[in-house]
């Protein structure tokens, strides 16, 4: 689904590469973990995979289409979705409104967007009355599930998760990981998790270990 081919990345005015010939294949239906210490280049790689930046050399393809020839904004709207350690919901929008937001951006009719948002929220265990709550009035686990629902609302088939359980306790963390695994195994999403958590790495189908800007081993 998402292929990285010899990705190198160098910041402007920098003499050394932050990413060094990275190649990886992220398949649909697989729960993939990228692990590595701080400074190993995980964030930069994530940024490229999320379409927020382009590699200095090398290529990224999604479903056979070269990222360099795509409108990156459309790529982020339709092809990939991200979830974050700190959830990153709009604080002044309700849970339902947060999930509807990407669909509003894609000009989905209001009624349809609302219906789909409700269904997505309920699929991640956020039901009824909680739809109208603001993020501050939801627990961490609930917020992360709303974030997952928002990610799913775009229709993207690649989910990038940056330390999704970092701010959660064990129980909620497990719930979130289970949801992500179900999405991969049961619904065919390519779920890519960047994490320090060895438990997540252990539960993954594929693990890429990064070190000094390269995939080790």
């Amino acid at each position, binding site marked *: 689904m998402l292929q990285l081919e010899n990705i190198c990345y160098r910041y402007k005015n920098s003499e050394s590469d932050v990413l060094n010939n990275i190649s990886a294949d992220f398949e649909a239906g697989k729960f993939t973990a990228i692990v590595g210490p*701080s400074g190993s280049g995980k*964030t930069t790689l*994530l*940024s490229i995979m*999320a379409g*927020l*930046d382009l590699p200095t050399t090398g290529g990224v393809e999604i479903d056979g289409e070269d990222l360099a020839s795509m409108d990156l*904004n*459309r*790529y*982020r*709207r*339709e092809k990939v979705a*991200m979830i*974050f*350690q*700190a959830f*990153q*919901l*709009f604080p*002044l*929008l309700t849970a339902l*409104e947060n999930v509807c*937001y*990407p669909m*509003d*951006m894609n000009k989905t009719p209001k009624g349809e967007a609302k219906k789909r948002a409700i269904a997505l929220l309920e699929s991640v265990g956020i039901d009824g009355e909680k739809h109208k709550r603001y993020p501050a009035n939801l627990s961490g686990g609930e917020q992360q599930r709303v974030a997952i629902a928002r990610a799913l609302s*775009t229709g993207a088939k690649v989910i990038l998760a*940056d*330390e999704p359980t*970092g*701010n959660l306790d064990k129980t909620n963390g497990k719930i979130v990981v289970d949801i992500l695994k179900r999405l991969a195994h049961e619904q065919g999403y390519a779920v890519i998790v960047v994490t320090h958590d060895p438990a997540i790495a252990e539960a993954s189908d594929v693990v890429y270990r990064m070190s000094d800007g390269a995939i080790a081993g």
Partner: protein
Amino acid sequence: MIQYIYRHIVRAPAKTLLGMAVALALTLALGFLYHNIISLQGEIDQLYAESVVNAEFRLEQDFRRSGRVLSDIVPMRVVRDILDLGIAKETYLEGAASAFLVEVSDAPLSVIDAPGGADILVGVAALRHLTEEPDGFMGRKISFNMEIQFADGKNESDFTYIENTPIPVVISQELMQRRGLALGDRAYIVYYEPVLFRQGEWRYAPATVLGIHDGAGLPDMVHGGAVIPLPAMENMLGNFTGFLTFKFAIDPAFNRELADVSEQLDDLLRCVVSIYPWRERLAVDIWDQELRFGVTALEQHVLLLQLLFPIAMGISGVIGAGLAMLLLLQNAKNAAIMRVLGMPKGKVQIVLWLGQIILCVVGGLVGILLIVAIGWRADLLTVVTPYWAGAAVGAAIGAILVTNRAPLDLLQVKE
């Protein structure tokens, strides 16, 4: 996009109120300053337009009788020159002449035989100037309260000069006794008519004693004189008519140019003195102290406000820019989320910019409405534009700064 902006305005009341309140306050402040400038200028204009400044010729010593003429009085030429300047709105004149008042008799008329010294004639436009308090004449009440005893069947209205008829004369008790005249008597006014560059001639004009006055209000030198209509005196002496009193009200249209008016009058007097050196004791006083006192303070105040106003506009713009930028920078994370979700950078900037500008526009509009409701006179665009312009620029800069940051830098938790 609109819904996002609307929700963020409505659901962040503190920020929203702050954004609007500052715009409102600064608009009102500028409106107040502007209104004060206009009001004060209006007061100044009104003062200039309505104040009556009087000017008065002053004889620095009593006039002298020099032979057959009176000297050191205001010559007709000066009066005409001043009237020609077009600066006088109203004038008050008292003519003065030296003449003999003699009783009509069968004996041939001989000036040399006329008993006593010359009498003084005073020409006035109307007797009421001496007998009454004219209503606000040139803004000042003149109280003479002269008492006049009229001949039988005669009154003030008979004090009128008609050519080829006897000149009505109101004489003093002293003159009456000295000349042996009585009420209703016919008389002659024997006067010397000067002629330029050659010997003048003695002339006489028929007169009739209309009344007897008590001298109240007349200058000392003419206390015992005879009062005749000013047109009669001008008819007798023509350009050689002299004036004891010459006051005039300056046309308010010239109130802003009184320094120039004063210079013109000084030039005029210098010219007169150069021709008639004995006129050097003539001076003219312009009584503009009240006007100057009132206007100077106001003009200083207006000047200060006019200096302050552009500074206040600048401050308003700077505050608008600063506040808009600050409030917008607080939206950095939201901007990053929008970009991660696929919104183009430019659109993110527009959403954030609009969200801020709407608050400023609403606040400014409320300020304008309040200015209109209170009735302040202010150029509405001038008072609101500095804040709007500043806020627009500040919000634009803030939006650019916020969207130039890498989204993941803002959204990732740093270890």
